[in-house]
């Protein structure tokens, strides 16, 4: 559940190219996942809650490509619908963190001075909190609804956006055209909207993609310990949890959900890395 930004990518004379294999693969995985989640009803062979009690715990077969679970539900279908939950939480929390964090970061860098120092100290406090414990506690305190999970994760990933946005804003703030715009009396908000935001868009987008990856992992972890999505709604992490008691007898119950989680996270990570390389091949991202 690390919230650190990616390392500096110093690929030397890497060209700006869309042909980076990582970017393509990542993009494909993400696109497939999003499409599948959106079109779940059409793609999935069965409903996610459709129980067939006489066909429980079956290994993969022609009827059920990935087998059935302990209540006779089709695992493939549940994994497909689970993608919806994972994406909803992943994207929802990443967006929330992006909006909140970017606002704070931009405000801090733009206004500067005492506000900047104060806000960054507050972000430091957030950083010092152990992420998993904070997520677990928040969910337990607020309740285990999807909305609360998004809220909790959004809060946890916000500080990283604040730092990224702030750093970006600082570098743009000193640019001559910005100074010039201020000199001719351009109003602050307009300045921010027209000049600042487009320039900090790239690192924020990259950070968003990476945050989605972490959020998907986090949601799976929460569901794994029973504090995430509640039954009978499908969740990859919860499927891992209920399937693990058959670890030796029916390993497919454990293997497939975990595989899907890994693929999803991999996709977003690759995409994020690819986007970062694309946007700023020479950029030296912050080590934190």
């Amino acid at each position: 559940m690390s919230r650190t930004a990616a390392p500096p990518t110093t690929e030397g004379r890497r060209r700006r190219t869309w042909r980076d294999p990582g970017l393509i693969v990542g993009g494909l995985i993400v696109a497939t996942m999003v499409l599948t989640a959106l079109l779940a009803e059409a793609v999935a062979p069965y409903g996610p809650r459709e129980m067939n009690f006489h066909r429980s715990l079956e290994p993969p077969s022609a009827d059920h490509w990935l087998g059935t679970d302990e209540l006779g539900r089709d695992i493939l279908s549940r994994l497909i619908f689970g993608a919806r939950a994972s994406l909803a939480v992943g994207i929802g929390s990443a967006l929330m963190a992006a909006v909140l964090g970017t606002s704070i970061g931009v405000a801090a860098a733009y206004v500067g001075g005492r506000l900047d120092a104060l806000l960054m100290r507050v972000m430091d406090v957030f950083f010092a909190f152990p992420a998993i414990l904070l997520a677990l506690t928040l969910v337990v305190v607020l309740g285990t609804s999807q909305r609360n999970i998004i809220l909790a994760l959004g809060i946890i990933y916000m500080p990283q956006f604040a730092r990224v946005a702030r750093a970006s804003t600082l570098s743009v703030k000193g640019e001559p055209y910005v100074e010039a715009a201020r000199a001719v009396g351009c109003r602050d908000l307009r300045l921010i909207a027209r000049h600042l935001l487009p320039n900090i868009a790239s690192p924020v987008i990259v950070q968003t993609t990476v945050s989605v990856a972490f959020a998907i992992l986090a949601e799976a972890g929460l569901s794994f310990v029973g504090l995430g999505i509640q039954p009978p709604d499908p969740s990859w992490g919860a499927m891992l949890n209920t399937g693990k008691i058959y670890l030796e007898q029916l390993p497919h119950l454990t293997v497939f959900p975990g595989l899907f989680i890994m693929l999803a996270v991999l996709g977003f990570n690759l995409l994020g890395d690819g986007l970062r390389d694309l946007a700023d091949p020479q950029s030296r991202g912050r080590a934190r």
Partner: protein
Amino acid sequence: MVRFILGRVLAAVPVLLGVTIAVFLVMKLMPGDAILARLGTEATPELIAAFRDLYGLDRPLPQQLWEWLGRVARLDFGVSMVSKRPVLESIMQRLPATLELTLAATLLALLIGVPLGVAAAWWKGRAADLVARFFAMIGQSVPTFWLALLLILLFALQLRWFPATGYVSLIDDPLRHLRHVALPAVTLGIGMAAVVARYVRASLLDVLRRDYVRTARGKGLAERSVLWRHALRNALIPVTTVVGIQIGTLIGGTVIIEDIFGWPGMGRFALQAIYERDYPVIQTIVIVIAAFYVSINLVVDIAYTVLDPKIRSEGQRD
């Protein structure tokens, strides 16, 4: 130098203070009937009143906060609502297990990650680089609790090489400790190794790029080896920052893994406390972990600055 260190230490204090206050506020969010849930059938009105009094829940918020801060300063973190034992004592008893696990995972991560990163940089652009980066990517993306289950299935249940649960202290019996810590350390170490490998690679390439320009006319293999060794030393310095952060994150992040492997550390204790709504324990563990995180960052910060004078002069810290 001393002023710098002092300055850093002083900067850390408000962060810890902030964490303490934030923890207090988060716990205040807890629903009112949590007390009832804890007391259950024994909840006579007198008992509830006594309970509220003990935990100071009737007094105004600022006063509660002040009392809380005062107690924290005295290192009085109260007693567990479940075991009725002093919280700090219970945590300190479990801390060594978490630290041992963190140490093992970190060592493993360095042992795997550093060579991997160096290799990737050495053979940059070639097959080995791609393979190394591919594995690093996988390592970063794999869910640790899934990996744990797979490792248990293969190494504990099928091959019976390692135990799946249980704990033996490093001090009591190093050999048996190694057997017990193996699987959990690998589970945690792989993710960290991936991050380390990527940073080592990037940092190394960065240093090489800068220094290479200076020694553009390298006089053959011998020169290149010297260049590499020099570069490696310089490149590893920023990596320590990352490793430090990773360790700090790891100490707070062993929760689920400790639970799966039955590792009696702070993380597992925290998870149980969260299930049981044992708020004094949850609060204190968060503060302890935050203290570790801040301290480690502090040490790494200072070490980094001491080791790399270029950074000091650039004044690039935010």
